[in-house]
């Protein structure tokens, strides 16, 4: 699912902008792939590697981590995790959520009370956890 490239491009552009006024070299960037969006790590890493060429990220270490997706019902307070329901999603549904994570509200209801009114408390999309540049850490 090749829109991983668009997300990788966003990460690189963000790092470039954020470190623009810094003088140090970028040493390490940690990216968290929220479980909900089901970003394919291999493709994402490949994209980052390709797109980093001739940028300030060229020699940086890219640490990629998975972020657990969790939900909390605004109606009954119940909390649950994405992994507990993944198998119930059809292919079309998973694909829609892959592009727009919030679409989960259309397909998944609170397992306890059935309400669609719940919060995605973590693990939504792609985040940069930190950027290490020489002598500094940004987050």
């Amino acid at each position, binding site marked *: *699912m*090749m*829109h991983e*490239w*668009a*997300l990788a*491009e*966003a*990460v690189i*552009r*963000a*790092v470039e*902008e*954020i470190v623009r006024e810094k003088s140090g070299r970028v040493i390490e960037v940690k990216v968290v792939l929220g479980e909900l969006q089901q970003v394919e790590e291999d493709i994402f890493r490949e994209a980052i590697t390709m797109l980093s060429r001739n940028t300030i990220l060229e020699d940086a270490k890219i640490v990629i981590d998975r972020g657990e997706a969790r939900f909390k019902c605004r109606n009954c307070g119940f909390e649950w995790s994405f992994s507990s329901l993944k198998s119930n999603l059809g292919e079309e549904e998973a694909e*829609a959520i892959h*592009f*727009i*994570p*919030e*679409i989960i*509200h*259309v*397909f998944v209801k609170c397992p306890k009370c059935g309400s*669609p*009114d719940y919060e*995605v408390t973590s693990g*939504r*999309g*792609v*985040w*940069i*956890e930190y*950027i290490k540049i020489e002598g500094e850490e*940004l*987050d």
Partner: protein
Amino acid sequence: MIDPRTYIIGERLREVKRIITVASGKGGVGKSLVSATLSLLLSSRGKEIGLLDLDFHGPSCHIILGATDIEPLEEYGIVPPRLNGVKFMTIAYYIGDEPAPLRGEEISNVFIELLSVTRWGKLDYLIIDAPPGIGDEIADIVRLVRRCEFILVTTPSKLSLLTVERTIKFLKELRQPVIGLIENMVLRESGEGIKLAEKYGIKYLGSIPYTVEIEDAIGSPSRILETVFSKKLAEIAVASGLL
């Protein structure tokens, strides 16, 4: 934690010459019909057009355009499919006929996600069909797109005029450029739309009559382009300098 998505939006819109949001504040005044028809009109006159339906609770442009059997292509991002020449993006591709009960922050998130992965390519105009409301609805467009121009739509009713007046004040506070005001669904000319435009130094782009036959044209771009609605809107597009 840094959200990388907003940093790429400028790049995604780099080859888009002008971004025009059709807004009102008030619902049911014809924003979607104006957005979709304007897109068809400009495209039929040789402009390269993108249309983005931002009403996630009540997406309408796909119904107006009769968009069935099309879906976006996944290619280093999302490439919007073409419909009568118009590159068209809507949440309806993903939710079908189901309700998308999204809350304020979630709506902002969907909007950011769409802006950061959609590859519009070269466009003369990107037309954005705004939802009703003057909170997140307009503030997010202003904050994220950064170089929008607004076309405002009202009906001649007091109930619409007073809400659109709030929207005009809000856009002034946000220092956003307003192309002008369209008065839609006019049964008899009352001059109220003109007065409102004058009060705020906004251009009155013209009025569109209440057009009974529009309902039967919905779903068929070619029939829409033949309605009085479309003919009047074409004059307005010229008056606005869009054509």
